């Protein structure tokens, strides 16, 4: 058993595309037959391109010229003093369009272009992936349609307007739970209607194979940069890397930089919602059980009958009942740990970071800050890298009370 565990971890660290589409027992490809051929083609194409020097050079140039990479690793002395730790922020909020989502959106848009599709569809929760996809689609010259739940559209109005300005057609989803999960349902229905002509640009490390692997590859630039930047500053590797987990793309991106360094603890922070007993939340890795949703076998928030439960988080980007399969395996192997923080903890962290550092973080990223602060309390003097996945401008209306939290 330990043998299998060790070899699974070794395989995970090596990071080759899983030939069976699985991360241990998780992952796979649970989709309608209509999508099987197109997923097989995408698997072949993405593996080929991600190993192709011409594609890699184009991606790197676009990361520099369009996204603005590398992003800074900012020492955060104000937070460090308050937390009794040495704190560094990996500044994905400085990416073009304001969050890590563009790393993936741009990468996939370049693949879509090479596949010769005629349009791109995407889902969005916080609107960050929608904005990133709209921007990337414009960059490669493809029309783009974004599905967004009506509740999220209300909560993240600035992003709704930005998508439209960037030329995307936004379709508001009124079915289901009217948040990220229903937006994915609708985007998949659109894709199934024209699988050959449409490219589905999925926004996190979820969904059927090859998405969890491919999206991770595009996001791992976060962790690789952060590791190099930590070493370049002197003082060596951090003691812990902390990131928020919705679907898990910014977290896996940060973790990839350190997964092969056993001395670096990996800590993912999920959304605990209001935090009361029986209140809805989005802490899938903490409280979910394995099941199949949106094309993958993975921990889900579901009832005893296999029906998907309604979730809640003040952070729309974390408000999702599933999670990336690779996180589930990292958890099972004991390589990463996952905790949750409440809406209120995240709000406090947002205000603390804003005033102590002059950086307004997204509500999603604020979960990582709150989790890091709690970790610091039991590890005085430790060196901490926090994934600051995005900026908080999109949340202003939520913060001022202009729109309700859900």
């Amino acid at each position, binding site marked *: 058993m330990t043998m299998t565990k060790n070899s699974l971890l070794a395989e995970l660290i090596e990071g080759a595309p899983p030939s069976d589409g699985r991360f241990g027992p998780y992952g*796979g*490809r*649970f*989709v*309608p*037959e*209509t*999508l*099987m*051929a*197109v997923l097989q083609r995408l698997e072949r194409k993405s593996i080929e391109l991600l190993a192709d020097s011409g594609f890699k050079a184009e991606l790197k140039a676009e990361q520099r010229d369009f996204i603005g990479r590398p992003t800074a690793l900012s020492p955060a002395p104000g937070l460090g003093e308050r937390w009794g730790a040495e704190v560094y922020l990996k500044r994905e909020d400085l990416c073009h369009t304001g969050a890590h989502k563009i790393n993936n959106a741009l990468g996939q848009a370049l693949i879509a272009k090479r596949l010769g599709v005629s349009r791109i569809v995407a889902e969005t929760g916080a609107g960050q992936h929608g904005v990133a996809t709209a921007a990337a689609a414009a960059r490669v010259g493809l029309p783009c349609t974004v599905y967004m739940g009506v509740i999220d559209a209300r909560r993240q109005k600035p992003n709704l307007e930005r998508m439209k300005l960037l030329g995307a057609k936004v379709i508001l989803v009124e*079915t*289901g739970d009217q948040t990220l*999960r*229903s937006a994915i*349902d609708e985007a*998949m*229905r659109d894709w*199934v*209607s*024209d*699988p*050959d002509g449409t490219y589905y640009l999925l926004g996190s490390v979820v969904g059927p194979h090859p998405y969890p692997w491919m999206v991770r590859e595009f996001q791992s630039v976060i962790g690789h940069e952060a590791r190099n930047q930590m070493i370049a500053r002197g003082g060596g590797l951090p003691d812990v890397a902390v990131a928020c987990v919705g679907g898990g793309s910014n977290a896996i991106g940060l973790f990839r930089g350190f997964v092969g360094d056993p001395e670096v603890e990996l800590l993912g922070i999920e959304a605990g919602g209001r935090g009361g007993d029986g209140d809805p939340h989005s802490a899938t890795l903490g409280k979910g059980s394995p*099941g*199949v*949703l*949106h*094309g993958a076998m993975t921990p*889900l928030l*579901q009832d*005893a*009958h*296999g*029906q*998907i439960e309604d979730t809640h988080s003040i952070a729309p980007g974390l408000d999702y009942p599933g999670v990336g399969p690779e996180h589930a395996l990292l958890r099972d192997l004991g390589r990463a740990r996952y905790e949750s923080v409440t809406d209120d903890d995240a709000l406090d962290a947002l205000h603390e970071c804003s005033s102590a550092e002059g950086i307004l973080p997204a509500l999603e990223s604020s979960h990582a800050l709150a989790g890091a602060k709690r970790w610091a309390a039991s590890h005085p003097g430790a060196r901490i890298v926090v994934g600051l996945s995005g900026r908080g401008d999109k949340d202003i209306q939520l913060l001022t009370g202009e729109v309700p939290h859900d």
Partner: protein
Amino acid sequence: MTESFGSAAIGEAIDAASGTALCAYITAGYPSLDGFADILTAVAGTADVVEIGVPFTDPMADGLTIQRASRVALENGVTLEWIFEVLGDMAPSLKAPHLLMGYYNPFLAFGLDRLGVAMTETTTSGLIIPDLPIDESGPLLETLQPRGLALVQLVTPTTPEDRLIRLTSAGGGFVYAVTTTGVTGGDAALPTQTLAYLDRVGSAASLPVLAGFGVRSRDQVETLSGHVDGVVVGSALIEAIDRGEDPGVFLEELRPAAVSA
């Protein structure tokens, strides 16, 4: 009385149909728990095979009609346990064999072994699971095949030739040929390339072939009848129920004239 059930019984029921076989889909517990028994009886009295929909919160291959029916059924409290309870009472008197159709997660949560037992006890002949491709169906086949139960395979216009050959001989019962790319509930146009695709499915398949998705009129059934062994009617039947029509009469009117006369 249904004497036998399972993969073979489904095939026999389709073969025994007068002309084009009619397979009817209804969502379990829709529009109400109490009204479901009458609808099931009426549908099984006319259709050659009945598909009972197991509702799911995220029906990603379904259009608005079945999405709505699923939501109502869930609000009514429908679970697989409830469905098997109803079938335990009703199955002996149903005039057509029945299958369950639904997304994988509720079946997984029920437990695959327990599922095989409950299906046998309620003479449920098989399953249709739109989000479970053959590649992921090993564990479920392990519980269904020894019991002679079907896992009906769907093929679509995007299924490559080699896969088509694999799928049309797998799973048992019949081959579910999806008429178009897309979700349920549309209105299938059936251009000649669709009919050619259905002919291809037919020549590859040793099992009977039923065409479904977007079948809603007798004209379509007539067009399809030379190319497939039967049709599946779902959203159109639910819409007829919504209009207060008798589901048995609605189905009867879909049969090509020469046969229903």
